[in-house]
């Protein structure tokens, strides 16, 4: 500014006013409330209605939670304590049942002195899935992943150590045969590998286990499937189902898109049939019908049977989710893979599936969450699920007869935590892949 101009200006403030906070109505909480909750008469009415609904809900349950009793030995005692403390009309939660029976909610009827086995199996689960799920886990840990299923089964059910070792050997054997025959073509190698593996399991594995066990008898105390219950059962079924249904779903989705009529027809019929039938029907099939088809005398574990049926059920849904992902890929991706000389399997594995699965993550995780919750339906085939099987058993005890809401709240909360964790993980994964690919 030049001098002449400065002189021609009539008044210039030379001391600055100190800054003042904005008027209360323009800042912080009040402004936020006005803009978001009371910005018009309709919004104001809705806000008030909402507040009223929350009030009703809280006033109803607040007391129940507040009056909760942890220290008691029966529901009668609970009621007495509540009446003494809060008056004769007060209602309250009797958490004492959870306190006394929590181990049954978690482990079912698993022998308490062996609780360390399922706990160890659960802890090792995270070592096994770590390298697949999180980038910060060193990839070297991944050798443990294929071993884990066998180790977990052994820890949970116990028995001779030669069981899991020789079963694992069977799969390794199949793999070795596959490699050896691979140069005669992949279909040939796959068939021969599969036949050798099946023959091994039908005729060799049983005698071998007895033989080795007779020579070196090492093992864990056996625990029967009937002892499983609660979250141990739900998580065993859930993890097994998830681990098997994802690959099965991928195979079915590819099968449905196949040019080979036989494979395509089989996939379509399988998917449509399984999706068209309620899960409970399939569970009844698992518990009753399969016995008719199996040779008499075979003891086909009930948990394994249910797990297979749950897997088939989830796989059908996952196949459809993945089919959506496959359909979303532009044709140019297939053409570029073809033009570079990649064969069908390499193109699927390296180009198509990584992209299709990424698109399908939300749908796949929804299916997993749904499946995990559906494991509670096993109560209908006589297994002790955490939501009804175990609480019914506890209510059969005279001391806890009449207990109703508390187990639902407790079990519901645990289900929520586990499913919410899965959901958050899927969002984390989506974000990570989004970041990586853009």
């Amino acid at each position: 500014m030049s001098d002449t101009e400065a002189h021609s200006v009539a008044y210039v403030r030379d001391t600055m006013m100190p800054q003042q906070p904005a008027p209360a109505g323009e800042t912080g909480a009040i402004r936020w409330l006005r803009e978001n909750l009371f910005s018009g008469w309709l919004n104001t009415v809705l806000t008030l209605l909402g507040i009223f609904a929350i009030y009703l809900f809280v006033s109803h349950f607040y007391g129940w939670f507040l009056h909760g009793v942890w220290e008691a030995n029966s529901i009668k005692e609970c009621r007495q304590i509540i009446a003494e403390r809060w008056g004769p009309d007060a209602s309250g939660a009797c958490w004492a049942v959870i306190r006394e029976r929590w181990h049954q909610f978690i482990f079912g009827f698993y022998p308490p002195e062996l609780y360390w086995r399922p706990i160890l199996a659960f802890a090792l689960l995270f070592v096994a899935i770590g390298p697949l799920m999180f980038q910060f886990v060193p990839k070297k840990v991944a050798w443990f992943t294929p071993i884990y299923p066998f180790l977990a089964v052994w820890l949970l059910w116990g028995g001779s150590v030669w069981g899991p070792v020789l079963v694992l050997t069977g799969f390794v054997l199949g793999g070795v045969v596959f490699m050896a025959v691979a140069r005669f073509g992949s279909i040939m190698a796959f068939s021969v590998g599969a036949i050798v593996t099946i023959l091994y399991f039908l005729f060799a594995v049983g005698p071998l286990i007895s033989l080795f066990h007779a020579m070196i008898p090492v093992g864990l105390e056996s625990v029967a499937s009937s002892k499983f219950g609660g979250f141990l059962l739900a998580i065993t079924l859930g993890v097994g189902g998830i681990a098997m249904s994802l690959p099965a779903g991928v195979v079915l989705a590819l099968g449905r898109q196949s040019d080979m009529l036989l494979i395509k027809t089989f996939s379509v019929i399988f998917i449509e049939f399984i999706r068209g039938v309620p899960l409970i029907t399939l569970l009844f099939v698992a518990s009753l019908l399969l016995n008719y088809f199996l040779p008499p005398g075979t003891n086909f574990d009930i948990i394994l049977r249910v797990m297979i049926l749950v897997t088939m059920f989830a796989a059908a849904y996952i196949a459809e989710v993945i089919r959506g992902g496959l359909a979303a890929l532009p044709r140019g991706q297939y053409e570029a893979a073809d033009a570079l000389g990649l064969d069908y399997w390499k193109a699927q594995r390296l180009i198509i599936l990584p992209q299709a699965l990424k698109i399908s993550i939300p749908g796949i995780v929804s299916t997993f969450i749904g499946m995990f919750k559906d494991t509670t339906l096993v109560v209908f085939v006589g297994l002790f699920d955490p939501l009804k099987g175990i609480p019914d058993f506890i209510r059969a005890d005279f001391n806890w007869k009449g207990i109703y809401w508390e187990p639902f709240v407790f079990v519901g909360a645990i289900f929520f935590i586990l499913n919410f964790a899965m959901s958050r993980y899927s969002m984390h994964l989506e974000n990570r892949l989004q970041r990586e690919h853009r």
Partner: protein
Amino acid sequence: MSEPHIERSVDRSHMQVSDEVAIQIENMNKWYGQFHVLRDIDLTVQRGERIVIAGPSGSGKSTLIRCINRLEEHQQGKIVVDGIELTNDLKNIDKIRREVGMVFQHFNLFPHLTILENLTLAPIWVRKTPKKEAIDTAMHFLEKVKIPEQADKYPGQLSGGQQQRVAIARSLCMKPRIMLFDEPTSALDPEMIKEVLDTMIELAEEGMTMLCVTHEMGFAQAVANRVIFMADGQIVEQNNPHDFFNNPKSDRTKQFLSQILGH
């Protein structure tokens, strides 16, 4: 397309055509259902030839070059590439696809892989090249298309012109003897067309056998030794670029040229 995208002089010293036959197409016919897309195509491509294929939309240009690496199947006649006949034999198809590179209009890079991974994938999995060697080759070709600094980015982070150059480099990493281009510049903004054409010219200067579907007539004049004009699934006319542009014989060609050159 009167806009001149080619400014530099083209070195033709290595652009020799040998007697060896690279591609032989005899009496080839193709249908889509009832629709007769390609009619009685006869075409012999010598090694080292640079052929530009032009023609109105829907005339079957893409279909023709896609038959050469079996992205499309022909129903009649014979296609022999590098002495190998294209039949239903998967082994032959694989062999031919290894020798023939293809560049698409929409690049078709793999968006979930980095540029470097895009380039090394096929050499490692198809040619069984050791990883280190594949990376060296990839960096060599990235330098050739002048974007070595983008190696660790993802395709979505590159401009269209850069993506198309990556796509060319990806094909070259398989060391093909024949390159097919299907309108490599028509999805690009004008200012990016030049960088892609420059890359293609360089390739021609090194003696690569090329079949290009393109409407870049400047490129045809500078590089091609033969221009093929297609209409309604047939090869209507073929000639060297000079005579093709200055002295077209058929009325369809004249009509097409007047449209495309804006006369």
